[in-house]
């Protein structure tokens, strides 16, 4: 299993042809208290860069973009009742969606953990 990171502060963890996607700890820090997460319908096909979800903090709504092409196969229903989980465990229990990888080649455009850490340091 490999984990990749996008410049939009999403993580994507790939196991076989299924990728789990969420937002990074840096992203949740920037957002502040999360009060609502809007997730896509399962079965929806998204292209890299499409809006895949929306995170609402007390202050504002922020889009979460699909880091790669794929089909949404599962969404994290726990976030409907406990959106604050995104602040508590963004890179674990508060994953957003699982996707069937549509284009594995796109993964190589993403960062590994070390590169993402270095990227965040520049912000």
């Amino acid at each position, binding site marked *: 299993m490999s984990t990749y990171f996008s410049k939009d502060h999403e993580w994507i963890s790939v196991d076989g042809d299924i990728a789990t996607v969420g937002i990074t700890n840096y992203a949740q820090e920037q957002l502040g208290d999360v009060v609502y997460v809007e997730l896509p319908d399962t079965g929806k096909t998204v292209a890299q860069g499409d809006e895949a979800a929306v995170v609402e903090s007390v202050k504002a709504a922020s889009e979460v973009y699909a880091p790669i092409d794929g089909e949404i196969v599962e969404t994290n229903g726990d976030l409907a009742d406990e*959106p604050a989980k995104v602040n508590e465990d963004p890179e674990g229990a508060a994953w957003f969606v699982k996707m069937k990888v549509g284009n594995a080649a796109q993964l190589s455009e993403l960062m590994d953990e070390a590169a993402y850490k270095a990227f965040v340091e520049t912000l």
Partner: protein
Amino acid sequence: MAAPDPQSELKSTPLSDLHEELGARMVPFAGYSMPVQYPTGIMAEHVHTRTHAGLFDVSHMGQAFLVGPDHETTARALEALTPSDFAELGFGRQRYTVLLNNEGGIVDDLMVTRSVSAADDGRLYLVVNASRKDVDYALLRQNLPENVRLETVEDRALIAVQGPDAVAAVAAHAPKAADLSFMGASSMEFDGIDCHISRSGYTGEDGVEMSVPAGAAEPVVRALLADDRVKPVGLGARDSLRLEAGLCLYGHDLDETTSPVEGAITFAMQKRRREEGGFPGADRIQRELAEGPGRVRVGMKLEGRAPAREGAEIHSADGLAIGTVTSGGFAPTLGAPIAMGYVAAGHGAPGTKINLIVRGRALPAEITAMPFVPHRYFRKPKA
């Protein structure tokens, strides 16, 4: 010519260094670099204000005096631009009002306080929105009679302390603060520093606003923050607090097209002014008072958890577009999303089922009376 760097042109307040020290996240707001939140975050700051006391730097707001030969003259000069009664305002009494344009639209909303004693009467102290300072001051200067002048205050900070423990925390340093009644103001010493303190604010809680010499702002704030009951609060929670209290934010819930009747702030219009008129746009405003406005500001509660933000369309139950959300977000005290906005006449009754259109989806909601969270202003017990 190089493009101006917006960051470098932002103004600071006398408390900017302290905000940085406290770990605030600073954002541009109305030309100032202001704290939007401190490390604990908006939700915790909001809850702390409702349960104990929040301290807000509101030094970006405009402080000014109207100075005339006597109270009557100065009051009438301001009455010519507002629909409120200032002639009858008592010593050290404060009133909320709006500056009007010739169409009866709101140029700004502001607080006005009469001087504390007869010794310096003829002065009205104004606190205006940061984003409207230039517009307000120009309007006032153009319209004031020759014997009334505008003096802007550039050397004082403004600090709000709000919440059930706010007055006790301030009174530990300025005992006279405990004697103030709601919307009353007085000059007093805070640890030996001359301050002007009013029992008012913009969160729906009991509390004070303190005008403090710029150089003394930091010691005053440090003294207050040394009290465990008082925590610093940023603009993020200030916004969620005022929204729960049903209070308007200029530029969002009020603008130059909205009248005080549409904005549902007719409490700022005392009886004499409603009847006599004599303010800009009186024809429109008196007609709206008599016949009802074409649109009105309302509160809305959403049934689900998804918030509706400023700009979301409001639809009637049968799908008619009837208005727009002007402020919306999550209400930490209620644990639910709330909004305010304008709906067309006939759609504003509390209990009316509506839909708010968010990202193409219709979110069920209901018109509701405001405030969303009851005000807890201090009322002196009747003798």
